[in-house]
């Protein structure tokens, strides 16, 4: 057991957790932030992507203890004053989601893409999202949503 101190979605949190607690487990089970989803056990699906110190990360690939002191943003922290982030708005407008399970990871990953590349091409978007699997949408409307968000961010 060890103490995990993080700033999650702008709030300081401190919790005792076993040393082998994955960040994804810490968020879901210790902080009840269940918007971050677990879709596989091999770090392939990307449903668990969050931002750690501003960069996207599959939260199943890091131990919570290893990122002690970091700033974490999850899907729950993307709204400001109850208003959805332009990426969330674009996904809604262009039907970039169906069952919603891969969506939190997909949105967090896409937000990071636009932080790093303000006007990505279709190919760049598809390449970037290679680490996020969606079984419902065929990706087309996700790509369209990311392009739409790029015009609003």
């Amino acid at each position, binding site marked *: 057991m060890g103490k995990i101190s993080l700033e999650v979605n702008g709030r300081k949190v401190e919790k005792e957790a*076993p040393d082998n607690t994955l960040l994804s487990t810490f968020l*879901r089970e210790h902080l009840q*932030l*269940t*918007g*971050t*989803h*677990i*879709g*596989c*056990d*091999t770090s*392939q*699906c990307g*449903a668990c992507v969050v931002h750690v110190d501003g960069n996207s990360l599959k939260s199943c690939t890091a131990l919570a203890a290893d990122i002690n002191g970091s700033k974490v943003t*999850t*899907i*729950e922290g*993307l*709204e400001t004053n109850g208003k*959805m982030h332009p990426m*969330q708005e674009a*996904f*809604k*407008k262009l*039907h970039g*989601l*169906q*069952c*919603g*399970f*891969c*969506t*939190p990871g997909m*949105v967090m990953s896409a937000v990071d893409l636009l932080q790093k590349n303000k006007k990505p091409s*279709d*190919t760049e*978007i*598809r*390449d970037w*999202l*290679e680490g*996020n*699997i*969606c*079984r*419902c*949408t*065929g*990706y*087309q*409307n*996700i*790509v369209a949503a990311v392009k739409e968000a790029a015009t609003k961010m």
Partner: protein
Amino acid sequence: MASLVGSRVERKEDKRFLTGKGRYTADINLVNQTYAIFVRSPHARASIKKINIDKALKSPGVVSILTGKEIADDKIGGLIAGWAIRSEDGTEMKCPGNPPLAKDNVNFVGDPVAVVIAESLAEAKEAAEKVEVDYKVLKAVTSTADAMNGDTIHEGIDKNLCFDWLLGDRQKVKEAFDKADKVISIDIINNRLIPNAMEPRACVADYNAASEEITLYTTSQNPHLSRLIMSAFGNVAPEHKLRVVAPDVGGGFGSKINVYNEDIVCSWAAKKINRAIKWVAERSESFLTDIHGRDHVTHAELAVTKDGKFLGFKNETIANLGAYARVFGTVTPTYLFGPCATGVYEIPAAYTNVKAVYTNTAPVDAYRGAGRPEATYTIERLVEKASMELGIDKTELRIKNFPTAFPFKQTLVHTVDSGDYVAGMEKAKQMADYKGFEARRKESEAKGKLRGIGVTSYFEACGIAPSAAVMSLGCGVGLWESAEVRFNPTGQVTVYTGSHSHGQSHQTTFAQIAADELGVPIENIDIVHGDTDKGTFGMGTYGSRSLAVGGIAIVNACKKIVEKGKRVTAKMLEANPEDVEFKDGEFIVSKSNKKKTIGEVAFACYLPGVRDEMKSPLPEGDEPGLKETSFYDPSNFSFPAGTHIAEVEIDPETGHVKLEKYTACDDFGRIINPMVVEGQVHGGLAQGIGQALYENAEYDETGQLMTGSYMDYTMPRADNFPEFNIGYTCTHATTNPLGVKGCGEAGAIAAPPTVMNAVIDALGGQEVTMPATAEKVWKACKNLKKSNAKAA
């Protein structure tokens, strides 16, 4: 008021999904819950000699360990096949018992033998490692084609044969083939797939000792049906003491139709230990134990005249059921497959023969399209081959054999009410610039690449399943749907549907329908589903039935509301009910300015009586309240259809297949929400293209799954697809009041043959099996080079 049906209404469900507020089963935690881990067979086929749980019981945190013996002692029933199929010789199908925890034998890798319940997940995992199972390993049967020659898996089931089923007339087919100028034949493997909904299966079972009620939260496409099966066949609890809740469900694609072992075991065990139990599948468990799809081996032949008229068709298929026959396991390769085997063509004589076999692999059941992709793949590969062998353009050959009039009495079973297949073909050709293909082929050739074009024309029988039709086929279960429309006294509406959304957008599209029918703003309409305690028994979502069956039940319930509203308005306004018209939410007495809004009528129905008028607004014979129910049993299936065209470019140096263009032109009848329909088409296409180019579930000869993770099973990614080119033609279904047909499965049905026809076209007609991986295609390119060199 503008009609919402047909509009691009943004989804009501999206905000919660986009802000992390979705509530999936794995998100549910109950006070004092325990955690379950299943001990699973590592062998494909073995008998269980002994299970020793002594060490595991001493492991920290263990609450209980239960095995097949306890579940048998408690007389808990097993998993079932939902549809009875009769063999050609009149004998009934043969199904083995499938206990929720195996007691004597295990029959596939992942078959559960025990459940370990502990205070924490880590403790349950640790204890599960200490359960000692002594197996006598037996020779596994894994090959679909050879299953009938393998060792007998289930005692008393000879040749591992569940049934040997025939649809059609062998004698007529023989006569047709005798008259043929040419017979085109093909051997096909329809590769096994794993549905891979992104949310792994999960369940949380709770027992309330005071009310003696079990509540099961589970990842189901059909909670009412699950409850029925668990109660009637599983003997878990009587239905009124069992509540099944399927909250937000992260995709299904057929894999979440079944009641699974874990649902039954956790529900039963929760009562036994009087504590809540949570189980969440790891992805590897999903790979091993979710139902799989497809897995057919087929030989088919088409008899043709020299000018390309189809005369006869035969289809001999071996369908792999896996280790056990599950809910849709037996109907998928028969009634969902056979009647669609002749495709969109007039073929005077046809038969389909299916031998369904057991193997030591995961159960095979309904996966998106279920039977219809297998049927379409066979006929469309065969027709494409016929076009090559006859030297007739692939689109012309198809058009030549399309039905010329509707209703179209299809060869084997269906009467297709509506369609215009020629219009669909012409529009698809235009969208795909079919004429310009040869020029593009030359451009590719100039770059040293091989380019191919492939076509598929398909139809599918959706809106499963009209009772009268399925009863006449002898398969016993009709699948209607229910809806209940409830007005609140203050005018908002709650619609309860027996259907279930796990991505399909019911909350929005069903609300659009109700809004139009009732003239109530969409924001005042809630759609409720997924909880057996809320709303009437219903059949759930699969087989593109939500709208074509469930949607119509909503329409019918709304119409009953309007009828009552007319009677109440007439009484309130002292008019004849026949003189009251309903439009845009208002009941208007014709030829007068007297009217009542539907909100006023609802209020009057619940709070009857106007103080000074000293009379009730309720007509004699009408009860208070405004709530109506409909059980809708369709008169026929619905029949979406269309033509898809794909273009691929192959690099002969690497064998890489690039899907350059994909055009889909579908006829789904009336469209409720074009945005949602587009999404359904895209998703279906991705799964169909996945089957053609990437996905394959493979077992080795000992029955180990070689593709048991996302490292080994290729899930299509964003960079695997071009932008899809999508369009529609529209003929309204004549068998339901909305004119709708269904759209969820079309892409998965049409895409595999479309893409493979293009690949094989590029390879000069050489057969390649799905998935057309770089390795297979590279080898075919080498052969092509050799044969070209010889020709030169």
